[in-house]
């Protein structure tokens, strides 16, 4: 089939392969930057699909969505437009870990994204399976299953979990993509021919059941927030908050459930050895949970709506590849789901992906300029992780076409930078998921200040328009003004002040005290001080909240900013791409091997590679200094 004669079907500057969450952001960014873009998808019905959980955001992931939005991506807006429930997680644990999550209407999300693509200038949406990518005249030629060939400058591969994908349920396994869409069986071979190393990961999804077959009266209810929050400042906050929210529910496994799984474990492809590929530790199947944590008496399951008008319910936490009859027994053993009618059976899926250390921080293949990878194809997991990579790859592909300098996001500026840096310097042994704990600069990389960190970049790229940018500048000025006021407003010790402080459980004062210092006291909020802070200007709620965080955490923020500054210096010491590590005297063999394989772009990146010691870094720095001086 791959040898068949192809015909010239057209050309473009950027070809994006796959219209999942990565591909969408890549194609939209590229087209919006004025670059002629074609977005290929196996099926127009699969655009922006959510084959697993029907939600966007969550811990760490919420940060990614805010950052995507600040850079001018689409995910935040799409999620706002199609959200069923909004919850701000981790409230009361500190602003750095606040994380927004929306339950999404998956059908509506798909539809939103399809229409969005159709209405985007410079973007062509084409249903076709890309089977081959061939280097061609300094760029690439992509060829479809029907032999249509497109010539382009850059290709962004966002193949998701479709490459040679295999669905496994018990003894049954067959070639199929997520949601039983058609798999992409040919592209892997073409990539391997180019010298790209592939490997196999595994993931899974839980069953869907019919809402009317659930005994809600025995389930715990999980409602949305009273004040629902949108991801994007472009969404009308009031209208968003006015939308009626859907509930989620919580049920639990029990000893009976666990017994069913234990006595059938020999029929699990995970335990029989049928599945050999690596799955994610943070998203284990139910059989894995039972076997690995035998002491745990029950496991929580979340019942989440899949859409506003559908009765399909997603059973979060019950991911499995057990045979269907065992799955049914498991579901029916759960209190509340005794009569549940299963609509979709849970399955595991295995797929080809790449080792991301083959990529540069632009997500371009080191050995194939103009060829980019993004999303699950790069070894990650999750819609948000995929979308942010798609955005970075799409932007860089477009920049390359436009002959402009590349965009590299760093660890100290955003979660996206942290994610990409982890991928391309450390690699990953399991599908990579974002978490707040992965991010050492999390105190300065908060959801609330994503705009301040990144919108300048989005604006510079033309992905953020003038009006939005100007509005943000105004907001930033209000925040700064309020911080300055708090740092220069003093209260003299009065009965009123001390009464207030004592009523707040705080110590009274005997001499003048600064507003900012009062705010830094534990348990005292901006709102609390309103009675004594008479000259407080009228500001938007958001400006006040953000000023409060900056003031309360000022000391810690300053400390992290200093660390980030130090870090930046290391990051800015570049290592030339043509560095021959084997010729550097004094480098240990392991370091030579690791550095040659990963070819880090800066000293900072080199220092994070496991197996490269501080002594190796010294040697490398000396070598680079010598080299520079010889010039």
């Amino acid at each position, binding site marked *: 089939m791959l040898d068949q004669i192809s015909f010239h079907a057209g050309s473009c500057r950027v070809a994006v392969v796959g219209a999942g969450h990565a591909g969408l952001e890549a194609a939209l960014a590229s087209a919006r930057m004025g670059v002629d873009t074609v977005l290929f998808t196996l099926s127009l019905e699969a655009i922006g699909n959510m084959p697993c959980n029907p939600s966007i955001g969550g811990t760490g992931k919420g940060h990614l969505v805010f950052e995507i939005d600040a850079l001018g991506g689409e995910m935040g807006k799409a999620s706002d437009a199609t959200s069923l429930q909004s919850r701000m997680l981790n409230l009361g644990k*500190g602003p750095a*870990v606040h994380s927004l999550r929306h339950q999404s209407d998956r059908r509506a999300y798909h539809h939103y994204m399809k229409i969005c693509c159709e209405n985007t200038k410079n973007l062509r949406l084409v249903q076709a399976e890309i089977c081959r990518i061939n280097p061609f005249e300094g760029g690439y030629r992509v060829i479809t299953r029907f032999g249509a060939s497109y010539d382009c400058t850059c290709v962004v591969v966002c193949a998701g979990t479709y490459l040679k994908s295999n669905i496994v349920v018990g003894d049954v396994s067959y070639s199929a993509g997520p949601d039983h869409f058609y798999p992409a069986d040919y592209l892997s071979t073409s990539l391997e021919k180019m010298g790209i190393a592939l490997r196999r990961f595994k993931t899974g999804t839980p069953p869907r059941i019919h809402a009317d077959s659930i005994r809600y009266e025995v389930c715990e209810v999980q409602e949305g927030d009273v004040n629902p929050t949108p991801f994007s400042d472009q969404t009308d906050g009031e209208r968003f908050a006015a939308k009626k929210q859907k509930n989620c529910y919580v049920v639990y496994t029990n000893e009976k459930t666990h017994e069913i799984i234990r006595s059938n474990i020999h029929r699990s492809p995970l335990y029989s050895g049928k599945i050999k590929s690596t799955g994610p530790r943070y998203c284990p199947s139910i059989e894995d949970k039972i076997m690995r944590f035998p002491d745990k008496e029950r496991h929580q399951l*979340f019942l989440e709506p899949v859409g506003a008008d559908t009765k399909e319910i997603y059973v979060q936490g019950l991911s499995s590849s057990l045979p269907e009859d065992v799955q049914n027994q498991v579901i029916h053993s759960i209190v509340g789901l005794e009569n549940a009618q299963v609509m979709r059976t849970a399955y595991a899926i295995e797929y080809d992906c790449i080792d991301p250390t083959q990529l540069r921080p632009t997500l371009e293949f080191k050995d194939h300029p103009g060829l980019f990878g993004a999303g699950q194809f790069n070894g990650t997991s999750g819609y948000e992780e995929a979308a942010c990579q798609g955005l970075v790859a799409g932007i860089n592909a477009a920049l390359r076409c436009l002959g402009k300098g590349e965009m590299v996001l760093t660890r100290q500026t955003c979660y996206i930078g942290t994610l990409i840096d982890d991928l391309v310097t450390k690699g990953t042994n399991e599908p990579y998921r974002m*978490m707040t704990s992965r991010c050492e600069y*999390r105190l300065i990389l908060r959801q609330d200040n994503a705009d301040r960190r990144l919108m300048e970049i989005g604006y510079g790229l033309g992905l953020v328009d003038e009006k939005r940018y100007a509005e943000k500048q105004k907001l930033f000025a209000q925040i700064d003004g309020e911080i300055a006021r708090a740092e220069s407003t003093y209260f003299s010790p009065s009965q009123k002040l001390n009464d207030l402080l004592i009523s707040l459980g705080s110590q009274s004062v005997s001499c003048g005290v600064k507003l900012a210092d009062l705010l830094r006291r534990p348990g005292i909020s901006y709102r609390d001080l309103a009675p004594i802070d008479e000259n407080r200007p009228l500001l938007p709620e958001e400006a006040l909240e953000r000023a409060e965080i900056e003031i309360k955490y000022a000391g810690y923020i300053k400390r992290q900013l200093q660390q980030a500054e130090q870090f930046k210096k290391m990051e800015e010491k570049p290592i030339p791409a043509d560095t021959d590590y084997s010729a550097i005297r004094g480098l240990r063999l392991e370091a030579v091997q690791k550095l040659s394989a990963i070819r880090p772009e800066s000293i900072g990146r080199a220092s994070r590679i496991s197996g490269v010691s501080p002594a190796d870094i010294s040697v490398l*720095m*000396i070598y680079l*200094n010598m080299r520079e001086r010889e010039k």
Partner: protein
Amino acid sequence: MSDATIAAVSSPRGKGGVAVLRVSGPEAFSVCERIFAPRSKRKLRECPLRYQIYGDILSSDGKSVLDDGLATCFAAPHSFTGEDVVELSCHGGEVVTAMVLESLLESGASLAAPGEFSRRALMNGKLSLTAAEGIADLLDAKTKDAALLSSKTVRGKLSEEIGRLSEMLLAASASLWAYLDYPEEDLQSLSDEELVFSLEAIRDRCALLVKSFQMGRAIQSGISSAIVGKPNVGKSSFFNRLLGEERAIVTAIPGTTRDVLEYPLHVGRVLLNLSDTAGVRRDFSDAVEQIGIDRALAAVRESELVFALFDSSRPFEKEDELVLEALSSLEEGSVVIPVLTKKDLPQRLELDRLPFSPEEMLSFEKDAEDLSELAFRVEKVFISDEFALREGRIITNVRQKTNLSKCIILLEEAIDQVLTGCKDLASLSLESALAVLLEVDGKSAGEKILDEVFSRFCIGK
């Protein structure tokens, strides 16, 4: 690797006449200004470059003089490292040197990593190509030396204790991380009370280790000690008996011992750096002796252990009063062991004039065979935790002490942050605490916490 200002002892470890401490980095001058007061009263910064400036080396709070010495300033790029550099020379005792280093660290310098001065020199183009090519071997050799050194000492057991503490800290951190990253799951993570309890336990064990620093020094590098007493009380006899050989001149003429001699010697298992001091008296026969007496008094003031000698055969005199005065000027934490000499002669000293109980007083006769009572007393003070010693849970160098002290501070911060609901801050403090704790043993945290999260908690959302 960074442009922090670093400091370290640059002269070889062990006793020498003079020790050199090097401070390098953008803050080198300001750090040293804090702890070095030129006798000329000029500011260090205003003194000529590359000249040796004489002055006092102060503790970081500026309250006490640790030593007198020389400072030499080098401005970037004309220095060994190519940065601003100050070299401080002080007297070569290990204790003095360690105290000066501590003072520098407390004034804003951070401890230089092995080879870091050389690395900076290389980075700033101050070393030649040949030197550069050798650096890897050099750094490797340093590590090997360190390894060798550690195998000789009791690091193995210390490692175990650090290992246990880091496991405890790892578990606590993992619990907090899981709680933050998986807020909706019933993870059975630690409650705030449990978390605080566990952090306090780790903190207290770290504090025990910091305390063991003194014990470590008592065994490894020596406790600074001095003998004080009026002329002819028998200081030199006492000194010689401790030393076991005739090093000082023993005569009956007051004021013979003019200079301060210092010798390492063992009393029981404790290593003492013992200064023999001149007699304390008011009338000075000549200037040379005056200097000797000043030094003697200084040696006494800076000692951690002082043997105060009183002549049992003579009545209490004003010179004994001076001795008591000198004792009262000792630093807090210093230990005094009172000793009665010449017990073979009839007793004429009024014991009630001394601020010591009879049980505290040790007896010493010139030809005493048995020093076990003395050894017992010294060991009791400096080997305070016999169990820890047997277990080898003691630290012996400033770097370990610095790290453990940092760890304690970070744990205190974390406890405070947990209690005030700032869990995001607490998670960062714990991350740093774990990093400094693991560093005591030369390990790095890497992805340890994350691995712990996944092995400890069943996470599925």
